[in-house]
């Protein structure tokens, strides 16, 4: 009986592995087969000259260019907002916080990491409406609101990766500089942070990936189907994941659907690229680059 169960278990494990890989292959394969024919310059730039589009001389109306630029800008601004705050908070959690403060913050960050992104989107949306009614008519759900909301969304990733990579440093290394007369802060700056840099970077890359893929937050806070290149942080904008979502429910003809496939393929290539970068960083490239004498 036991013997039978053991064999069954092994078979099941192999089957699940096959099943999972099969599913991933199906998803990627389906996208590639459908998306590759759509992948060309026209997909991105429409009828506009690529060069003049890149130089922002001409607007692109029927290509993905504005959406790609929108997503990139969104990622940059959100990460710029989240990284300083998150890294500082992570350092505090790992190196200074004790007792009740630590327990309390730990709990709060756990919750923040668990809040569904749509709830954060809802928060951003109501924040915009609140500001609109009470402070300025100029404020609508917009690029800035989206960035702030996304920054909230990825904050826990950055805090946690900073905290964990600092905490897992060998106590012997922690004491080296202290024994040489380093103050707590000097120890953090000169010894601990460089050690933790690899870990922090993979956290940041994770955060970038999250910003690039999230749709729930931006669909409530100002992403629209057609807006052109983002011109002001108080304006509406286009983004790749939102475009895909929009196309999937609103496509009018086969050509538009094809653009959806193309956009999906571009988004997934972007995320795979980030994944590869994270993989290399985790191999401590950052760490070595920092210390090369």
């Amino acid at each position, binding site marked *: 009986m036991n013997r039978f169960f053991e064999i069954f278990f092994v078979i099941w494990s192999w089957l699940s592995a096959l099943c999972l890989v099969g599913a991933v292959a199906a998803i990627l394969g389906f996208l590639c087969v459908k998306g590759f024919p759509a992948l060309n310059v026209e997909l991105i730039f429409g009828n506009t000259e690529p060069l003049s589009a890149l130089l922002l001389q001409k607007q692109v109306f029927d290509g993905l260019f504005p959406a790609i630029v929108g997503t990139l800008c969104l990622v940059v601004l959100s990460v710029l907002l989240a990284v300083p705050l998150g890294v500082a908070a992570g350092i505090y959690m790992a190196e200074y916080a*004790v007792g009740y403060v630590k327990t309390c913050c730990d709990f709060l960050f756990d919750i923040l990491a668990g809040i569904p992104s749509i709830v954060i989107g809802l928060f951003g949306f109501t924040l915009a409406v609140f500001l609109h009614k009470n402070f300025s008519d100029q404020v609508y759900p917009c690029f800035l609101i989206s960035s702030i909301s996304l920054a909230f969304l990825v904050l826990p990733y950055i805090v946690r990766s900073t905290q964990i990579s600092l905490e897992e440093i060998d*106590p*012997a*290394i*922690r*004491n*080296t*500089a*202290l*024994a*040489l*007369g*380093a*103050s707590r802060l*000097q120890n953090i700056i*000169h*010894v601990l942070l460089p050690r933790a840099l690899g870990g922090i970077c993979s956290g940041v890359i994770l955060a970038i990936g999250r910003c690039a893929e999230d749709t729930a937050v931006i669909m409530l806070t100002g992403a629209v189907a057609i807006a052109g290149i983002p011109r002001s942080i108080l304006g509406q904008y286009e983004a790749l994941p939102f475009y895909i979502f929009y196309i999937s429910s609103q496509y009018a003809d086969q050509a538009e659907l094809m653009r959806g496939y193309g956009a999906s393929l571009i988004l997934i290539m972007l995320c795979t690229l980030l994944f590869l970068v994270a993989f290399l960083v985790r191999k401590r490239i950052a760490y070595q680059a920092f*210390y090369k*004498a």
Partner: protein
Amino acid sequence: MFELIKIKTENLSFSYNGNRILDNVSLEFREKTITAIVGPSGIGKSTFLLTLNRLWETVPQSSMSGRVKIRFDGKMQDIYGNGMSLTGLRRKVGMVFQAPNPLPMSIFKNIAFPLKLAGIKDRRTIDENVERALQQAGLWMEVKDRLNDSGLHLSGGQQQRLCIARALVLQPEVLLLDEPTSSLDDASAAVIEELLVNLKDNCTLIVVSHYFDQVKRIADTVFQFPYNGISQQ
């Protein structure tokens, strides 16, 4: 011969998580001598050293009672007292660990690191101090042509001397060494023993060791742990 007392512990007790490791240890260490601390492992020798430079304070849930006094500028001062700066104390009380722990930087930067921490920026001073420390540690001749190589590429014995040089660069008055030769081969260990005897002129050394013959060769005083009030000279 009249010698000044450099370090004095009074009723020092220490515990991790409520486990008593040191119990009422009162010892005196004479200036410019080598004192060896011997005893079985796990008995609290390393812990004792950590109480002399307050490095145990980073360990969560540890606690200490009693006093530690060190003679700085001619008078005995309580190192746990209010006026004592933590970083200042650690610059005057250097420490070398059991396993060599060079930082992942060049040899030069490793030795200059404590100077940088102390806020010394003058290039000349730094160069001079680094060279002097390397000379003292007997490493100068071996590394003077490759100061920019990584400190991690030295042999074990060289790495340990690098760490000694790094501890010496600030010219500490006390040097604590926690089994400095236990991870090295006999030849490297002999080099370091000789080095320690030479350092006696400048500072007070406390060496934790479990090699009795080593202790016999270099120590002026020996304390046996677990401490029971008896010491042999």
